[in-house]
């Protein structure tokens, strides 16, 4: 029996090849994920360990207080106490803050201000200097290498950095550093200074950490206790090893998220591969009915027949999985090389195949193969010995079983119900998961009823080819409907990839529309000027002189200044804002839902619609608010206003009153309207000229912001589509495989058609059309599922996200699926058309 199985495997080598490739790709992806993330984690940990090695003991800041606005720091005085503790050779404080770097264009670089960090000296220096030297004097600085590269700075340049009061300071750039695993620094860009300078520039009130080096022969634990005693119990003191472990843990979480995400795509690919395997084995078993029956005739038991098919799956799965393991190692190495080339802030470690990878990845592949082959193997045992004697195999007829219909209906109801429930519980992560579960159930239902729906669908998609391509077209449509179970499994493999791609494109298109809506609302004007962000998104201010300058420029129409300040109402902070006197009700027209905005005068306020509900106030009421100066002010509400266009503070008061309550504070935002008839380019030049003296003042136009969001969206879409492409490629292998096997089955029919005068080219065309139909059916089902569940996902997002179907993208996806099907048919079609007529007719 074993011999027969192995001989069969050798005979079907070619037919099993495509299946093997499908498995190998899936396993390869999983292996690649493991190899890549292992290497990244190892690299990061190496770096952390090397860093922490230099530190024997570290003093950490106290736990964050819920009310505190700033990150807690270690007061400056603690450093001296630590330095004088017994066994301490050296102790240095780490400073981290914000110091906007001025670029060559005179503007602060980036949308978020550059970070400033202190560079320790001596043994405790953890910075990796990649060029030049660390800063040794107050006027020396280093910069992270990627900022230097993108902004065009080199060692020896003079750089300008703003301090916490926006005063300019110049430094000599003496070196470049690699910020390594510190993601935030890599994102913002960083300037490294001596500790004292860093304190002065950032205005920091303390240290982020104090690193301590032990004197010769002092064990870490004893030093830790000594330092703890010196620093006081408010600050956690850890050894270098503990510090490394903590950093590694934080980092591991990031990498694990990446790894989980990639693995999810790998599993989708393997699911598709499972469908391909299932189909291949089903067809092989169907084609070998006579051979299997012969085995039964000569005394093989059902168990032996089952075993022989499963054994075949084991051999194929094992070989393919091992190939996948090698492929994955290569993929991981390639991805790592790309990461290195892109200079991503992740230090690549050495490539390793962890035992976990070597066991888990191939085992998954093997398991998927064997499980997928189990049903076909069971079908093989049903081959009746008598079938060996029959001259012809019956055309498979397909009838939907009652059990099948019932389970499909139940699954659809359950999935639909879950989805509806998920949507009804409102926006959030939880509902999204529920909708995902619902979607999976509905997909299972589609998988079950596939053979039923594939017939009408192929008739639908085949209507045009049937008319256009004559006999080949007609026969192709018939052939695609001939074995519904086979067609269904083939197409549904494609459905998975196409469905997920559609879902993603619907969700991104909807989010894009939502963002565009919001941008329209927030940008009722041509330009918006606001200050570069520093920390945590707190609103920074731009000097009033900027608005004054703008008003004097001939290209500029209206300049609206927006100021806001916090006051307390009923003990809670509420925002009070103003807008340049003339603007409200003229350039900016909020909707007045109650009262009259014209009556806004000193001592009165307009209440925002949202606050009206939450505070329970209305027109005629008087709100007593307390200003930061401690003054108590009565505000009589004269209007309730609402705006889709602008963010409104709780209370809007006249400009004069605002100044009276809060003093001459700067603008939080300046909205600029170009003068009628002035081109956008000219207006832009004027605005930029006005903003030039203020490096942190950033000029944004609606178009720019939209372009930024758009490119981020495109990137996301591209990455996800790229990852899903693997699943699609595997399903195309499935289409090629099914067609090759079907064409093999129909060798005699093809020969007959050729004998009756059908040209080779039209015979090839016939298979291409069949593939086209399979591709289109798979795409249609996928697109339908994708759109429906894209809609469901959109509903679980913020409640006002619109539902947008990117029609062009979806049509492109359908067309690409059809085309891909045709490409998948190229080889099987060539083989089918090449066959000799005589040989096919003669073989009995």
């Amino acid at each position, binding site marked *: 029996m074993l011999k027969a199985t192995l001989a069969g495997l050798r005979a079907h080598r070619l037919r099993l090849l495509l299946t093997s490739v499908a498995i190998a790709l899936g396993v390869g992806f999983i292996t690649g994920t493991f190899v890549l993330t292992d290497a990244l984690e190892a690299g990061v940990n190496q770096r952390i360990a090397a860093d922490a090695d230099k530190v024997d003991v570290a003093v950490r800041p106290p736990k964050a207080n819920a009310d505190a606005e700033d990150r807690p720091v270690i007061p400056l005085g603690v450093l001296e106490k630590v330095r004088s503790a017994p066994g301490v050779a050296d102790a240095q404080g780490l400073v981290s803050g914000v110091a906007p770097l001025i670029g060559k264009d005179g503007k602060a670089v980036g949308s978020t201000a550059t970070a400033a960090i202190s560079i320790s000296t001596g043994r405790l220096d953890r910075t990796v200097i990649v060029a030049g030297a660390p800063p040794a004097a107050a006027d020396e600085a280093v910069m992270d290498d990627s900022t230097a590269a993108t902004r065009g700075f080199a060692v020896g340049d003079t750089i300008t950095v703003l301090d916490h009061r926006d005063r300019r300071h110049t430094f000599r750039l003496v070196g470049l550093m690699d910020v390594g695993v510190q993601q935030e620094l890599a994102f913002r860009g960083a300037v490294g200074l001596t500790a004292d300078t860093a304190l002065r520039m950032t205005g920091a009130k303390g240290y982020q950490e104090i690193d301590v080096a032990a004197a010769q022969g002092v064990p870490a634990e004893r030093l830790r206790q000594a330092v703890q005693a010196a620093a006081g119990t408010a600050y956690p003191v850890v050894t270098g090893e503990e510090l490394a472990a903590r950093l590694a843990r934080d980092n591991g979480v990031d990498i694990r998220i990446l790894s989980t995400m990639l693995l999810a795509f790998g599993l989708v690919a393997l699911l598709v591969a499972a469908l391909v395997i299932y189909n291949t084995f089903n067809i092989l078993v169907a084609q070998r009915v006579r051979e299997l029956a012969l085995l039964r005739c000569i005394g093989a038991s059902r168990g032996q027949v089952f075993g022989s098919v499963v054994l075949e799956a084991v051999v194929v799965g094992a070989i393919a999985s091992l190939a996948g393991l090698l492929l994955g190692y290569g993929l991981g190495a390639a991805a790592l090389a790309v990461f290195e080339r892109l200079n991503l802030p992740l230090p690549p470690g050495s490539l390793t195949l962890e035992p976990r990878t070597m066991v888990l990845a191939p085992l998954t592949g093997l398991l998927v193969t064997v499980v997928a082959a189990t049903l076909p193997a069971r079908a093989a045992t049903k081959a009746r010995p008598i079938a060996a004697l029959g*001259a012809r195999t019956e055309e498979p007829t397909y009838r939907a079983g009652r059990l099948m219909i019932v389970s499909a209906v139940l699954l659809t109801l359950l999935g639909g119900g879950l989805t509806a429930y998920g949507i009804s519980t409102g926006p959030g992560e939880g509902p999204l998961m529920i909708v995902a579960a619902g979607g999976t159930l509905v997909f299972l239902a589609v998988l079950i009823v596939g053979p039923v729906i594939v017939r009408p669908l192929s008739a639908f998609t085949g209507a045009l080819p049937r008319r256009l391509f004559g006999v080949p077209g007609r026969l192709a449509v018939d052939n695609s409907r001939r074995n519904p179970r086979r067609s269904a499994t083939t197409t549904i493999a494609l459905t998975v990839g196409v469905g997920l791609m559609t879902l993603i494109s619907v969700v991104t298109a909807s989010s894009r529309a939502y963002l565009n809506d919001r941008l329209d609302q927030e940008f009722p004007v041509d330009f918006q000027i606001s200050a570069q962000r520093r920390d945590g998104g707190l609103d920074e201010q731009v000097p009033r002189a900027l608005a004054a300058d703008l008003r004097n420029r001939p290209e500029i129409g209206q300049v609206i200044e927006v100021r806001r300040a916090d006051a307390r109402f009923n003990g809670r902070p509420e925002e009070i804002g103003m807008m340049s006197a003339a603007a409200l009700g003229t350039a900016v027209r909020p909707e007045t839902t109650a009262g009259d905005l014209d009556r806004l005068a000193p001592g009165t306020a307009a209440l925002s619609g949202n606050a009206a509900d939450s505070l329970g106030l209305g027109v005629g009421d008087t709100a007593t608010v307390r200003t930061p100066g401690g003054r108590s002010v009565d505000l009589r509400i004269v209007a309730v206003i609402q705006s889709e266009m602008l963010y409104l503070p709780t209370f809007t008061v006249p400009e004069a009153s605002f100044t009276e309550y809060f003093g001459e504070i700067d603008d939080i935002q300046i909205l600029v309207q170009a003068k009628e008839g002035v081109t956008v380019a000219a207006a832009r030049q004027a605005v930029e000229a006005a903003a030039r003296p203020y490096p942190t003042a950033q000029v944004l136009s609606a178009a720019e912001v939209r372009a930024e969001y758009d490119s981020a969206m495109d990137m996301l879409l591209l990455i996800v589509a790229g990852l899903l492409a693997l699943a699609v490629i595997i399903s195309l292998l499935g289409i090629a495989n099914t067609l090759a096997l079907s064409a093999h089955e129909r060798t005699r029919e093809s020969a007959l058609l*050729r004998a009756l005068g059908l040209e080779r080219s039209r015979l090839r065309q016939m298979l291409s059309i069949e593939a086209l139909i399979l591709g289109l059916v798979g795409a249609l089902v996928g697109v339908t599922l994708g759109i429906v569940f894209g809609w469901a996902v959109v509903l679980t997002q913020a409640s006002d996200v619109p539902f947008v179907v990117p029609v062009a993208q979806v049509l492109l996806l359908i067309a690409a699926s059809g085309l891909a099907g045709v490409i998948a048919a190229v080889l099987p079609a060539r083989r089918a058309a090449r066959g000799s007529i005589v040989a096919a007719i003669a073989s009995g």
Partner: protein
Amino acid sequence: MTITGAGHRLVGNPAQERFAVSARGLTKVYGAGDAAVRALGGVDVAFAAGHFTAIMGPSGSGKSTLMHCLAGLDAVTSGEVHIGDVEITGLNDRQLTRLRRERVGFIFQAFNLLPTLTAEQNILLPLDIAGRQVDQDLFDQVVDTVGLRDRLGHRPSQLSGGQQQRVAVARALIGKPHVIFADEPTGNLDSRSGAEVLSFLRTSVRELGQTIVMVTHDPVAASYADRVVFLRDGLLVTELYRPTPQSVLDTLVKLEA
């Protein structure tokens, strides 16, 4: 030996006009070197138009090979074959395909119909492939001749073996080909169905003037023909006119001896 190119195919040779199919010096060798098998060793044969001819011979005599070569399904090693006035040796695949489409009909032993098409669609398939119009009168005549009027909407799986073969006969007739080649058309049928099919073939020769060349190993089947040619070891050895099952059998027994 002359290898005639495509340019010659429309130039008629008056000598061949009387024959629907003719072959001269036909040899067919499979394989090469030591493994070479000589299936046809120089066959000269001609089949008169409007006649029903059977090709007989023991197993391995080359009768199927001869038919495949005559029909342009298989390439000859040397010699020439004419179908009507067209020399088919040397035609390329596309030209051969067109020739089959327009001038040749086939009836095979089994698995002869497309399972996805109805009987009517199967009958009309050659015309569909060629993009030719259906001659409704001829269609009615053919369908009535083979007695399939009430089976036209059925698929092959719903038809008996005899009915399936009658569909195949009708399909071969519908294109009014120069010649119909039948390869063991009764090989898979019981004797009654076989007799029916053979009667239809004979009727089509008598009434429609069709030319039929049939390969068979069954003396009874051969007796329906006007003439039987006998093959042995790849050579034409003898022939019989107005055969009876007994005379065919006697000739075969002599050949085998």
